[in-house]
């Protein structure tokens, strides 16, 4: 019985072939008839007999039926990848620890987050393995990491599970699976994720384990946050993303926060009610607060007593942080005009380094080597793609990587990609261009704004760097007087720099520069204090892997505040999860030799059975022929 207990299927979905095949076989036998064929003089009278209907007839199949049923069972078991857990079974366990796994599910009395459920499942899997098995545990977020440092015993792998925490990042499941599958060391890959497997994408070595915790639920999250300095003070704007099945009311609270004696002190500044509907985004602007405040916390509060209450399945995305002191990175402006000419200096939290086109041409490395967050090429196009994220604004001439057509007047926007981050908060229907140039999107980019004459703007990624081409000029930056181009400019800076420092915070995982003579950095998230390890070199900057308020203490007891946030609408979307598509990479011969799967045995048995069936059928055919000749 132990031996039976150690059996399993790597692709159990294929077992559905068995009932389907059996049903088809029964139907075929019913259609074909259960008795043997007998030649009669005529069926003139037999035809008139009342015959029982197919379904009601007693089914008494010949022995051959059982033989063929066995064949189908063997083939189904082979396709399902029957394996025996035992010596030589090497299992990779991939645990999705992305942000969406923070979703709390289960009944009221037994609520736990999806990651805890996945860890429990992984633990039970490891306990079911024989001691001779070898297991490697991986986590997916923020990147694929082996927690066991190679194959370990199930007990060691079990201990490694304790170290898994929610990662602030996306799951990267497809690439993680591809990477693990490319390793011939593993016989099986068990994936524990809240994302379902795409149909027909399963591979014989891959097994998806789902749990009842991975069911759709409701969630409200802060989608983005920004801070703007105006004459009236500091204006905080919050975008709330809702993933709800019905209308609900929430309260968005703005608090001023400060660090006192290594403790976070919060003072409520304002609150704003909001009504959220289905899957939507709601932008809330708080009234200006005095510029003396140094940092803020924004929280979304649900009121269970009010009408339209819901269970917010992820609480971690209900909080966001802002710091007035956050420092943004430098952005290279390659243009004939300086940042002052283009009024870019009025953009808070962004520093522009002006480089003339001839200077850039003489030494393009200065942009590439110096750690600029991004480069803006204004009315100028470099000959080669720069090695930094860049925008080509109102290019005069084309280059090797995209084509620019002649200048045209009165261009009207006909289509735009609403969901693209560059077009956040923008309604392009009112956008009119007196003059502009039509661009030809390069193959690696997608058109994000089109006019009736052609592409006006494109965006794309090459080697992890982002490039944007705009057929119209955004500058000078005129703030509120030209709201559309100003918001576009801010979106562009945010998109290119991958940094939200310009709006008062750093994203999780980004490297934030440290001031000189730092002695300690602590992270405060409202529930506790964590002292972060300082980098060996101050210039390297500090990376925070979780959101919160950073207190950077320098010599002289000066404390600077920095904010770290994590926003990802895909991860916060608890209503829908995109299925995981697995590329079926064929295994090498070397892998096959190592694998202790029973599928090989099954394949041999099935092949032998097929040959036997063929011989049997030929024998029967010959016999019936002989009988016919004799008759």
């Amino acid at each position, binding site marked *: 019985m132990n031996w039976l207990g150690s059996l399993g299927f790597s692709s159990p979905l294929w077992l559905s072939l068995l009932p389907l095949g059996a049903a088809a076989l029964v139907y075929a036998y019913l259609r*074909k*008839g*259960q*008795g*043997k*064929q*007998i*030649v*009669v*003089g*005529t*069926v*003139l*009278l*037999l*035809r*008139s*007999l*009342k*015959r*029982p209907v197919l379904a009601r*007839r*007693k089914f*008494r199949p010949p022995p051959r039926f059982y033989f063929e049923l066995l064949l189908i069972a063997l083939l189904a078991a082979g396709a399902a990848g029957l394996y025996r857990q035992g010596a030589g079974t090497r299992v990779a366990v991939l645990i999705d620890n992305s942000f969406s796994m923070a979703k709390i599910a289960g009944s009221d009395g037994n609520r736990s987050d999806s990651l805890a459920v996945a860890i429990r499942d992984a633990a039970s899997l490891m306990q079911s393995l024989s001691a001779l098995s070898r297991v490697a545990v991986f986590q997916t977020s923020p990147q694929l990491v082996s927690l066991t440092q190679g194959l370990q015993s199930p007990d060691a792998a079990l201990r490694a599970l304790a170290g898994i925490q929610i990662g602030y990042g996306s799951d990267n499941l497809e690439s993680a699976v591809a990477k693990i599958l490319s390793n011939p060391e593993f016989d099986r890959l068990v994936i524990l994720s809240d994302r379902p497997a795409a149909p027909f994408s399963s591979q014989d070595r891959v097994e998806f384990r789902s749990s009842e915790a991975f069911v759709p639920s409701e969630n409200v999250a802060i989608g983005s946050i920004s801070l703007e300095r105006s004459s009236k003070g500091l204006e905080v704007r919050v975008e709330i993303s809702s993933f709800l099945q019905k209308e609900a009311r929430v309260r968005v609270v703005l608090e001023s926060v400060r660090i006192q004696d290594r403790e976070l002190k919060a003072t409520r500044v304002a609150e704003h009610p909001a009504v959220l509907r289905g899957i939507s985004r709601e932008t809330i602007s708080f009234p200006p607060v005095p510029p003396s405040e140094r940092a803020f916390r924004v929280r979304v509060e649900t009121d269970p007593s009010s009408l339209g209450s819901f269970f917010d399945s992820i609480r971690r995305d209900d909080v966001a942080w802002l710091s007035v002191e956050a420092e943004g990175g430098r952005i290279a402006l390659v243009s004939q005009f300086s940042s002052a000419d283009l009024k870019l200096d009025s953009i808070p939290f962004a520093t522009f380094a002006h480089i003339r086109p001839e200077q850039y041409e003489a030494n393009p490395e200065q942009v590439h080597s110096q750690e600029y967050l991004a480069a803006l090429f204004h009315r100028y196009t470099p000959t080669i793609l720069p090695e930094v994220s860049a925008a080509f604004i109102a290019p005069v001439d084309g280059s090797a990587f995209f084509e620019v057509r002649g200048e045209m007047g009165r261009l009207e926007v006909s289509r735009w990609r609403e969901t693209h981050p560059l077009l956040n908060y923008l309604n392009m229907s009112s956008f009119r261009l007196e003059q502009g140039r039509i661009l030809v999107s390069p193959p690696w980019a997608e058109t994000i704004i089109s006019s009736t004459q052609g592409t006006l703007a494109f965006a794309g990624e090459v080697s992890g760097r982002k490039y944007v081409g705009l057929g119209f000029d955004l500058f000078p930056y005129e703030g509120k007087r030209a709201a559309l181009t100003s918001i576009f400019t801010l979106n562009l800076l945010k998109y290119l720099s991958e940094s939200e420092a310009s709006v008062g915070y750093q994203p999780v995982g980004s490297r934030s520069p440290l001031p000189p003579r730092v002695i300690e950095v602590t992270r405060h998230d409202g529930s506790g204090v964590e002292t972060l390890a300082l980098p060996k070199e101050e210039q390297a900057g500090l990376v925070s892997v979780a959101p919160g308020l950073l207190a950077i203490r320098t010599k002289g007891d000066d404390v600077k505040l920095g904010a770290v946030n994590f926003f990802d609408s895909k991860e916060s979307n608890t209503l829908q999860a995109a299925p995981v598509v697995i590329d079926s990479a064929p295994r090498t011969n070397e892998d096959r030799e190592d694998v202790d799967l029973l599928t090989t045995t099954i394949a041999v048995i099935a092949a032998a059975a097929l040959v036997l069936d063929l011989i049997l059928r030929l024998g029967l055919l010959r016999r019936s022929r002989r009988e016919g000749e004799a*008759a």
Partner: protein
Amino acid sequence: MLPESFTPSLLRQLELFKIRSRRAFLGTRQGGHISPKRGHGIEFSDYRRYELGDNPRHIDWGVYARSDRLYVKTFQEEQELSVLVLLDSSASMFQPSLDKKWERACEIAIALGYVALMEQDMICVCAPGLLRTPFYYGARAIHHLSAEVLSVKPPAVGDFLVEAQRAINRVRFPGVAIFVSDFLMPSEHIGSIVTSLRAKNLDIAAIQVLGPHDIQPLSGNEDAIAVDSETGEQIELSLGPRQREEYALLLEKHNTQVQELLHSNGVRFVQVRSDAALADVVVQNLPMTGVLR
């Protein structure tokens, strides 16, 4: 050679029989059947006035004495009878082979041939599409006839009705026609064949040969697929006692229909079983048709 089933005692019994027709048919040579032709014979037919050229020996002098007029006596001439044996050559006669319906039909044909040839009648055996013998005459011809009939082997003809119509169209001599078949065919086909035979001025008799499997089909197999030997049509069957009873009723109904159809066309009919002894069939069943006496 005659088949082994034709024992000397059976042959002796057969020699006592004679093919019988309900009407007189013109023959081509002298025989043992009364012909409508007036001429030499034993049976007195009529008187007619003497005409020049009549043989004075046929003058009835008694009538002359009474009436003072010359009258001659006419006699019915006795001529041979033309016998056509039409064998059903459809596949149902050959299947199932164990029933030996075809063999029995051939034996009947040979027996009728023996009787006819012994009585100086002409006989032709025709299995449409497979066999058509010449009109045999004289006792010695029985061996030729037997050899020819026994030489027929399956496969059977594709469309018996078409072949039968073609064969009947070639009939030249009126006489007796004996149709030997299992009659397991649609009534329209039987009606069509009988009408064609009647159109050739033939006195028709029908002999139905049924095998044990025609009466109890698929015996020993409750579940089977019956394959029609003629059309290849397959019928899946589960023959329980109820179905068998139903089949017996269907067969009876069919036979009654066939019988009524034949009677309405003036065809004499008898049913024989293929597993019955040949002597019983010939001596007891065939005379019931009135074909033999």
